[in-house]
């Protein structure tokens, strides 16, 4: 069946909320830069005590994670499309004209810039002296963190019609896992770029190009030897990180993303539902229908709650155990499409209007 399109971002859905158990308190909120179009992925990152964020018009800022006070700001004359990756002392972002720029984490000076073959619509993965960048034409580049030289290039063909945007590569020890638009995952050796294994999360079915789209646009998730990935109009799968063998898989259309805790895998799907599955076999534990119809970003685990940001600019807290909606607050007028960044009791959100919000969670009863 052709998955029905979701409600346009601006249409908000009134969600009945009985007694909110938790309160969201706004700590600080600031404008980083211009508002951005949908389909790009600009998210804040935390690294050794500082909060970094970038806006679509090329403004990169470093903030104090608690007070929000600006430590440094840098203006690059580029259209940023995928940001920010952090690691090895540097920040990395990808632009709409196919360039990757690495900045020094303290001070923000440009360490190097490298032109690649197509748009970079999701943040590069930085670590183990490498910057791994996925581009919209199905290529994965590994660049040396210090010099920006291209170490290797791995590519997969892109189907005739795919979903706008793509997932970020995920670094594992001396390897990287990348999800592609043809519904497949590849695990690549970080040094040589050769594929350790390739496994299929979803197979295109249906008559029209539209029905056959099976992009893995949600970032794959690695946790303690398990790899989880979800494809649009396809399946969610638990995969063995070592062999790429698909342990379990379930029919689900994933546009939001994944989060995991020690028992459950949380998924936000294309219809705006939030699922909790048993991470060992994919059996469904609970399903939250309250946010149905909204476009949900990838969820984040925060204490006993699961935080889900939505296209109506709201942040929602669900009880991890039973999926009950326990807290909700509209943060800004524009939608939020990136995974909330959770760090020691604070949640950082970047919305489509180019604003960064820091929210505190205080439990009603303690």
């Amino acid at each position, binding site marked *: 069946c*052709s998955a*029905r*399109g*979701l*409600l*346009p*971002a601006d249409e908000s859905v009134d969600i009945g909320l009985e007694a909110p158990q938790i309160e969201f308190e706004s700590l600080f909120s600031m404008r980083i830069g211009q508002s951005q179009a*949908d*389909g790009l992925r600009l998210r804040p990152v935390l690294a050794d005590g500082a909060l970094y964020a970038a806006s679509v018009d090329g403004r990169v800022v470093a903030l104090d994670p608690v007070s929000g006070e600006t430590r440094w700001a840098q203006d690059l004359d580029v259209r940023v499309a995928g940001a920010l990756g952090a690691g090895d002392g540097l920040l990395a972002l990808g632009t*709409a*004209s*196919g360039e990757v720029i690495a900045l020094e984490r303290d001070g923000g000076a440009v360490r190097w810039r490298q*032109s690649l*073959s*197509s*748009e970079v619509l999701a943040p590069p993965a930085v670590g183990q002296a490498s910057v791994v960048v996925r581009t*919209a*034409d*199905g290529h994965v580049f590994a660049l040396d963190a210090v010099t920006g030289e291209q170490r290797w290039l791995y590519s997969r063909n*892109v189907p*005739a*019609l*795919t*979903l*706008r*945007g793509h997932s970020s590569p995920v670094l594992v020890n001396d390897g990287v896992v990348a999800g592609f638009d043809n519904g497949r995952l590849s695990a690549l050796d970080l040094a040589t770029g050769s594929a350790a294994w390739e496994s299929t999360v979803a197979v295109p079915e249906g*008559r*029209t190009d*539209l029905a056959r*789209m099976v992009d893995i646009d949600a970032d794959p998730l690695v946790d303690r030897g398990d790899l989880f990935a979800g494809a*649009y109009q396809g399946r969610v799968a638990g995969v063995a990180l070592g062999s790429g063998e698909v342990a379990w898989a379930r029919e689900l259309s994933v*546009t939001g993303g994944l989060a995991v805790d020690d028992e459950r895998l949380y998924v936000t799907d*294309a219809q705006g539902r939030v699922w909790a599955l048993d991470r060992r076999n994919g059996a469904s534990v609970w399903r939250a229908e309250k946010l149905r119809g909204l*476009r949900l970003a990838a969820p984040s685990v925060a204490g006993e709650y699961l935080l889900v940001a939505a296209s109506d600019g709201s942040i929602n807290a669900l009880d991890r155990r039973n999926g009950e909606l326990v807290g909700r607050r509209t943060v800004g007028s524009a939608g939020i499409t990136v995974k909330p960044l959770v760090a020691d009791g604070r949640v950082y959100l970047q919305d489509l209007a180019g604003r960064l919000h820091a929210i505190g969670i205080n439990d009603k009863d303690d």
Partner: protein
Amino acid sequence: FTIEEIRIRGLDRIAEGTVLNYLPLDVGDELDGTDSADAVEALFDTGFFDDVELLRDGNALIIQVAERPAIARIEFIGNDAIAGDRLREGLAGAGLGEGQSFDRSLLATIERELEQQYFALGYYDIDVQSTVSPLPRNRVGLRLDIEEGEPASVQPIRFIGNRAFDTDELRDRFEMGPAPWWAFLSNRDKYSRERLAADLERLRAFYRDRGYADFDIESTQVTISPDRQRIHVTVNIDEGVQYTVGDIELAGELIYDEAELRPLLAIESSEIFNQRGITRTIEALREKLGERGYAFARINPLPELREADQTVDLTFFVDPAERVYVRRIRISGNETTRDDVIRTELRQYEGTWLSTKDLRDSESRLGRMGFFSDVRIDTPRVPGTSDQVDVEVNATERLSGSLRAGVGFGTDQGVILNLGIQQDNVFGTGDRAEFVANSDDSDTTYRLSYLERNYTMSGIDRRYAVSFRDRDADEADLADYGLQTATASYGYRIPVTSNDRVGVDVEYDDVSLEFNNPSNIQRDFETRNGPDNTVIRTNLSWTRDTRNTAIFPTAGARQQTRLEVALPGVSDLEYYRLSYEQSRYVALSERFTLVLDGTLSYGDAYGEGETLPFYENFYAGGITTVRGYESNSLGPRDDNDDPTGGNLRLLGRAEVRFPIAEDSDGNNLRVSTFVDAGQVWDRDREAAEGPGDVSLSDLRYAAGLGLVYYSPIGPLTMSVARPLNDEQGDETQFFQFTIGAFF
């Protein structure tokens, strides 16, 4: 067993005769295992039955069938983007329609067919629910609920890797992209794979024409937003370096010596490498070889790129293949036109070698005859030979004749009553006969004219005409006088080159005037020449016509110089009129044609006459000369403020013409945006008011929109125009049109 009788049971709507027709068995045949299997299969193939069984009752064969229900009606709900009957046509195209046998598997094909139709318009978000309701007489009704959703629109195209040209310049090359606000009708912002492929081709040509010989499109991504409202196209390119042309060689069997072919090169050394130059060179070489019968010559350009100094050496390798001969010229489609009338226009003869140039000349000559809506010349090979072809000329005739009687209305001429028998192609002889009776506010004319095409073998045409005209000038807002003229003319049209013709006619003209309240000009004309005059005129004209067709030409030009001289001695009045007319047609693109017209006319007396007779003056203004101004209103006026016309006229018109409808009616309708200019001066008469000396600043300009439609009842012209520099006293007219009248 042998079949003595065949009985069919379970038939409801389908006639027994039909079933027997398809049954491979007959009474008296031997029936065994394989026959019965074939019979069952044959009946299933008809698609009428859900189930077929063969039973035996003694020696009678019983055929037990369960008929499939027929679809009685198909209903569409919720389809606003595509009309119901268009959807029905689509389904009929796929063999599904009312009266068809129905089964479950058809549902999926019906839904797919509807989805295809909607995807073509960019409605990717469509959802079709079908419900089947049974009806009496073993029929079913089909209801299709369609939720169309929003059409997805293409966002601005993104280019990666373009250093030499900025993104906007590249976006102009694309036909696909966001539609500008005024193009609400256009489907520019709808995605289609073919259009994208064509756009990419244009992009390659754009770079190849600017020296980027090894330009390459590395990959293209088409992505759609999750809510299926927006489609993004990203094109990743590698421009490579800009090359200039090194030296150029001609190799292979050239047929001509190299010196003769060199001038045909449309690309020179050290020029920026460009594909267009190469293509034009190939065209020119192929044509040159075609003139010597090598119609299937092949020219392939072999570029060698030298990255070091960024130059490209070009070798044009000529392979003439065999000289090709014409076995037979076959003419078809000519329902009324006689075979020889068409064959005369063909420059190519049978039995000799094929000249592509001659074929092209013949195609435009046939087009210029005016009574073919479409002329196509193909050269299929004669089967079994490699050196012979037949020439197939297929001419589709236009409604060339018309018996026209009716009422027309022209803003210039008021109500027009006309009866006209006009036949461009009298009984297929190519001759043109015309009988017209035409009366409107100011003029009543009767005209009978006949043009005999190919009166002699070498293509001389003969023409003669008789006409009578009664004009009441006052009605045509001219000076207040009455004019009766009776004219008869006889003459020839002689071809002097393949595109030029000389016209020689002798005309007898008898004019009688009566003045009610003559202006000073008329009064002194009457005093000098009296009311009645007869004139014998010779009209000499030189016409060069290279248009590719008579109706809405898109290439070539038509020029005519015309001299009318009243012969001294035998004419009461001694004057002459000289005019030069030119219209040039330039194809801006397949749809847009630029039309440039220009006319210069001058008349004067000679001998002891002083001025051009006032009724022979040239006029300007009105739909046929300068739109936006009242008919004949430009130029000097006499003492009771009526326009007198003048003996010097200059007209100009620039028009961009394009069809609006793609369908068949499209080719006899054109809309145009235009700028007209024109003025009339009176050189030698002291006019009461109006421009005495000639200066271009007197020219009046107007701009506007025009429409020309060759409707079945006759030509319809319409225009809305705003004068640009009209001055006090000019009579302007915003809307002008004529229908059913001759113009």
